[in-house]
């Protein structure tokens, strides 16, 4: 029983190990990009609209609605980053029911990379909104003595983001592996259905939390702008 898909190494190129995590990340990427390319070829604005295009439109519309509800801002800015996170995590979690597929989100390296991307996106979005000086000054609010705690909070929430996704996905696949030994008939299927639910929920939660962090970083700086303008 392997704990993480990192331990399955197919071949090595020099110091670089091509593990199952990497391969299945490529599979998810190829699937997403390939489906998008296929749908793009048949894009239509008037009926009859193809089923695949309708599905993609519904998916993107859902993400746009969620962004608008959570961030209370024009969602188009966030869509490329947040939508990509959602689609990638959702696809790899849902594909975990396919036999032989090891979800790349069940490896701490993938989730740490995703969480680091969120960690970097918060200052990038914040600085692009209000500029470097104003963004950095928002760390000194409300009191400069809080600075270490603010920084610590940013680091721990990134860690929590990574470990939450990893723990949920890995525990459901581990649970199924254990159940296959103990009670191989029918029961693992129920747990797999539960794992599917948890996977979709975790993709949603990861996206919403990333959005909340980004929006908080931007709106804090925005508040500074409005008060600075009035003063």
């Amino acid at each position: 029983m392997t704990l993480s898909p990192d331990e399955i190494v197919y071949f090595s190129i020099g110091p670089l190990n091509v593990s199952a995590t990497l391969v299945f990340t490529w599979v998810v990427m190829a699937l997403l990009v390939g489906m998008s390319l296929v749908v793009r070829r048949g894009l239509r604005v008037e009926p009859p609209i193809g089923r695949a295009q309708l599905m993609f439109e519904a998916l993107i519309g859902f993400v746009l609605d969620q962004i608008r509800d959570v961030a209370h801002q024009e969602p188009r800015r966030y869509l490329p980053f947040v939508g990509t996170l959602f689609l990638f995590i959702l696809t790899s979690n849902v594909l975990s029911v396919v036999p032989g597929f090891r979800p790349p989100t069940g490896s701490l390296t993938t989730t740490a990379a995703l969480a680091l991307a969120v960690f970097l996106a918060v200052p990038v979005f914040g600085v692009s909104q209000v500029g470097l000086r104003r963004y950095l000054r928002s760390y000194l609010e409300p009191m400069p003595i809080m600075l270490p705690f603010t920084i610590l909070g940013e680091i721990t929430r990134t860690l929590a983001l990574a470990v939450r996704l990893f723990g949920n996905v890995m525990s459901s696949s581990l649970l199924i592996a254990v159940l296959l030994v103990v009670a191989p008939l029918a029961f693992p299927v129920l747990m797999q259905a539960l794992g599917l639910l948890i996977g979709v929920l975790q993709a949603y939660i990861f996206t919403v939390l990333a959005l909340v962090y980004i929006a908080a970083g931007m709106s804090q700086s925005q508040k500074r702008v409005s008060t600075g303008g009035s003063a």
Partner: protein
Amino acid sequence: MTDMSLIAVVSVLTAGLTVAIGAGLAALAEGRAVAQGLQSIAQQPDETNSISRAMFVGLAMIETSGIYCFVVSLILIFANPFWRAVQ
């Protein structure tokens, strides 16, 4: 008892206790959160969307502590750093 078996006994016991206490307390907290969330939805059905979204985000936060306990117990069983000390 050798050092090795001492480490094994302590690790397995601690891993079990960690998951038991961590999962139990997280489940209690999540139960309270869901109960309160459902009550709010029953009082204000119009706000179902925002209440349930806030509830799920909060549940994820609460669940994090349970997941931390799970990861610590997995490390204790599968990747115990103390094995190397006695080998």
